[in-house]
């Protein structure tokens, strides 16, 4: 399947990665090569085969719904590029 420039632009947007317009054709052609390779999967008869959810057949573990941790505001914010007054600071989200 061939990926056009518009699709590459849309995927970059969905992935939240800025791609310059002049880089889109090369990206589209790389995607096409990779997806062309992936197309081989269409040769496999998967009728009636369950998609794998867990490689080990075990039930996902559960724990009691209780607070086990907390009171770590300083540690949580320690690596933030911008933290103010105990919060993560980001550009305006809502106009």
């Amino acid at each position, binding site marked *: 399947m061939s*990926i056009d420039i518009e*699709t*590459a632009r849309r*995927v*970059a947007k*969905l*992935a*939240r*990665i*800025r*791609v310059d317009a002049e880089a889109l054709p090369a*990206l589209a052609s*790389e*995607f096409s*090569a*990779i*997806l*062309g*390779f*992936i*197309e*081989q*999967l*269409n*040769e*496999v008869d*998967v009728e009636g*085969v*369950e*998609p*794998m*959810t*867990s*490689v*080990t057949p*075990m039930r*996902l*573990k559960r*724990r009691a719904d209780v607070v086990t941790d907390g009171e*770590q505001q300083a*540690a*949580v914010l*320690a*690596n*933030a*590029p*911008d933290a103010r007054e105990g919060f*993560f600071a*980001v*550009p*305006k*989200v809502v106009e």
Partner: protein
Amino acid sequence: MTDTRKLTIATARDLLRKGEVTSAELTETYIKAIDAAGALNAFVHKTPEIARAQAAAADARLKAGDAPDMCGIPLGIKDLFATKGVPSQAASGILAGFKPEYESTVTSQLFADGAVMLGKLNMDEFAMGSANESSVYGPAVNPWRANDSDAALTPGGSSGGSAAAVAADLCLAATGTDTGGSIRQPAAFTGTTGIKPTYGRVSRWGIIAYASSLDQAGPMTKDVRDAAIMLKAMSGVDAKDSTSADIAVPDFEAALTGDIRGKTIGIPREYRIEGLSPEIQKLWDDGIAMLKDAGAKVVDISLPHTKYALPAYYVIAPAEASSNLARYDGVRFGHRAQLSAGDGINEMYEKTRAEGFGPEVQRRIMVGTYVLSAGFYDAYYNRARRVRTLVKRDFEMAFADGVDAILTPATPSSAFALGKESADPVEAYLNDVFTITVNLAGLPGVSLPAGQDSKGLPLGLQLIGKPWEEGELLNIAYSLERSVGFVAKPARWW
């Protein structure tokens, strides 16, 4: 006194317990060796102060007679493991400056046993790659060189720094992680031993995630015995990782009897891929002969879906990566791009991620985004997960037919020159063609050095085992290791 740089974990453990060497002495030797090996670019964050403090504590424990196997053993830690207060950035620009407030379960367990951390090791960015060339630190360099050549070779990836450090005797052993072959391929390229354990054997908590259903940590060591010792120390159920299995951890070292009489080894015909080099073919044939000589029965088997493992992987791994790496957005940790006046939060995300991620990581995130996007989810992602079920079933049928382990080459070639990784992504992905099935099926796989090619470079063989049977797998590897008698070391040039 013995050359402390030639020690294995097992020999160092014995000397430490007998008081013939101290961890402090060992640690100084390795700190010096690391400082003199900058040309290998294996250690990217050195931690000599931590190492000295841990060594002193280990010596005190040893003196008091409390000496777990790893007590006082100097290790290198792959940059993918979160280490408290020490840079942990998965070789990515987007995690520049990140110092975790927590310790990964694997390193916690190793340190609780008294192990010593010399520093953080180079790798491919977010463990994506097979040549260590996608690292923000620049590539690690293989200590091995081809005969009569000064060309820098790749140590493989993504645990390339780990493999280079162990091969060059810059540490006694190192941690690695393996999502599609990232322990076994670099082990093969550097003449070292690496095991990817059964999925769920080792906690993934605190290991920066690439593809969660495939990632598994393991040891990279100088020989099979050390792999057994260190794997035991790394293993075990962890409440912080819901996919870690609540299964007893056996004494893997005790399983190393070297007796493999009566074992059945499968040789999968689908791994005789077109264009397999005669040298790799001969290595494989020699390995088969050695296992027969040791009393094993060798049978041909078929794993019919092998061909589809690589394309399935390149749907599933990017899909999971696109989800896992969504958290790197410039808000909570790491890099945030400079914003222009009027930029909102979307511009912040897009600029941060464009600046912070290298090209291979961006490519995989976007491929993953595409295969998960509306309209393609079933055609790509669900189909790949169905094919994954079939890949696993192939192995289950082979084991049900009485096969105890499977022997294959570890890589399609010996280490190649840095800068020679194919610019064609699909061709570059072929490096993992022999290893990737094992991750899809969640099985344990070990790579051990089994010979050298005409250029004098090491080549590895891979043994694949039954789930949770790492002990038996390592015992077969141990038998093969003794038959091979691989003792070559890279000539020191760095």
